């Protein structure tokens, strides 16, 4: 098992290097570049040249890459000239909020998507299945921000159940869970809607496939209850490929967080990324891209390992 993990870790190194190279290329095709940003819009060509030299931007590209990568390995994600702060600091303030949001959305998606998918598969091609499919497709095709706005209009403006946005009510200074959760419900629901749709569809398909297998027929023939067959036999097998899908959903969740955090003025990574894109704050954009890439690769690695843990047919060697 440890050999398997070690091998998978080694395999993710080229991908990680690739992510840094992609990011580095993007830095260099970005117009303006750090020299112009630092020297200011009114700088003379000589001043820009001086800054370029001071930053080492006139060195050969591979040397620049090596130095940038070296800094990255020391935890230096770059420096935001717009916000006048190291990118790592900006990210450190916001990453926990986004992970909390993503975690809640992930949990909500699993809790809703798995039973829905199982039941749709069990009752496939019935009116329930068809109606549910239409709703699944509709929520899959909905612009996220529209859904978020509808939630705000209903639950915050009309019913006043939840606050409109933000991370915490402004006058609460202490960290208290009830207001925290109240501020989390609508953003998490907005972020979750797409994955609920996609996953329930996936579980449905995967369950239908498993329900055709011989072992299912055997389990039914043994006289086991429907519930036991569905949840103890079929679902377990249907969930195995789902683990990989979970890993692959992480980037989509980071992307979705951009829009969700924007709707609910939630101070996380997504909002920082959007603000940086509007300000053309390239160092921040790229620092965040590298960091997210690393998190995604690690997430996929974790999914692969889990896959091997739950499916004994996957060989470790």
């Amino acid at each position, binding site marked *: 098992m440890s050999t398997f993990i070690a091998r998978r870790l080694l395999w993710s190194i080229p991908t990680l290097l690739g992510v840094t190279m992609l990011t580095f290329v993007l830095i260099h095709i970005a117009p303006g570049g750090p020299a112009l940003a630092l020297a200011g819009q009114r700088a003379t060509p000589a001043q820009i040249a001086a800054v370029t030299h001071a930053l080492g931007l006139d060195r050969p590209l591979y040397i620049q890459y090596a130095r940038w990568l070296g800094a990255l390995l020391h935890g230096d994600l770059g420096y935001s000239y717009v916000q006048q702060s190291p990118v790592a600091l900006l990210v450190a303030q916001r990453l926990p909020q986004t992970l909390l949001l993503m975690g809640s959305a992930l949990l909500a998606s699993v809790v809703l998507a798995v039973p829905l998918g199982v039941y749709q598969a069990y009752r496939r091609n019935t009116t329930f299945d068809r109606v549910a499919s239409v709703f699944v497709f*509709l929520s899959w095709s909905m612009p996220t921000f*529209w859904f978020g706005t509808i939630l705000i209009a209903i639950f915050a403006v009309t019913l006043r159940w939840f606050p409109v946005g933000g991370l915490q009510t402004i006058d609460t200074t202490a960290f208290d869970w009830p207001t925290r959760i109240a501020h989390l419900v609508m953003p998490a629901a907005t972020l979750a809607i797409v994955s609920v749709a996609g996953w329930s569809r996936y579980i449905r398909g995967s369950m239908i496939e498993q329900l055709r297998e011989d072992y299912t027929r055997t389990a039914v023939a043994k006289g086991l209850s429907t519930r036991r067959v569905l949840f103890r036999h079929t679902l377990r097998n249907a969930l195995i490929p789902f683990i990989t899908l979970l890993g692959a959903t992480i980037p989509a969740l980071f992307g979705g967080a951009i829009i969700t955090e*924007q709707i609910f003025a939630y101070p996380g990574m997504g909002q920082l990324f959007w603000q940086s894109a509007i300000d053309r704050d390239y160092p921040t954009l790229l620092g965040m891209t590298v960091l997210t890439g690393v998190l995604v690769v690690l997430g996929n690695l974790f999914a692969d390992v889990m896959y091997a843990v739950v499916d004994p047919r996957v060989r470790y060697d």
Partner: protein
Amino acid sequence: MIDALPDMTFVRRRIRLPWIAATCMAWVALVVLACALGPALLHVSAAATDVADAYAAPSAAHLLGTDGLGRDELARLLVGGRITLSVGAVAALVAMVIGTIYGSTAGYYGGWLDTLLMRVVDVFLSVPTLFLLLFLAAMFHGNLVTLMIVIGATSWLGPSRLVRGEVLTLKERLYVEAARSLGAGDGRIIFRHLIPNAAGTIITTTTFMVASAMLAETALSYLGIGVRAPMPSWGNLLSGAQSDIFAGAYWLILPPGLAILTTVCSFNFIGDWLRERQERALAES
């Protein structure tokens, strides 16, 4: 040189349309027609402002009311539909051309080239698409053409994987062997034999890509770096109406939202139906 006939059985076979796919196709056709011809038939300008008549509720003069500048909402919806549909179609086309060429090259040549090309796809997949999209859209924020290219250039990863998988099985077929023994080169085999035979996968994926490209336009417009005002698109009509939601101007919020929802959903349903047909045809063969 004899070229193998592309295996279009999934298109040609006797079509028994489920009502839902039929409805979706009819809806898409209707929307496309309305957006193409509507503005000319309507005799109302989408750009003419009339501040005295701002925020007017739907009436005989303005079937869907007017916006905050007194512009006719129906005219803007139809013109905006042209923009959003074109963005969806062109971006999907760009994604499919890149994805098809990339995927078929990887699948056909195999070996180290395949490994390398697919590793590159893994790298791109590790970065959230919306990050790349936002980064590129901020960098090249300008006209409609760059928007289409940027959306297309960030959505070819899925298609390239699907096409590669298809080509991996197709290249073992006898007609590829036959073409090669007749002296066909790699390029001819890929473009005249493999890609036409992968048409089923390519058409199905394109349908889904149109849907997701339209949603990408909407998302970027909401984030302020999509289609630029005053040019209307469904995305910026909808995001512009966000502030009108508290004023109760339902005629500004519902039409663009429903237009996006129903059209994107129709494309997804059509895609799903095509995929199901294809899988069934594969199982029967």
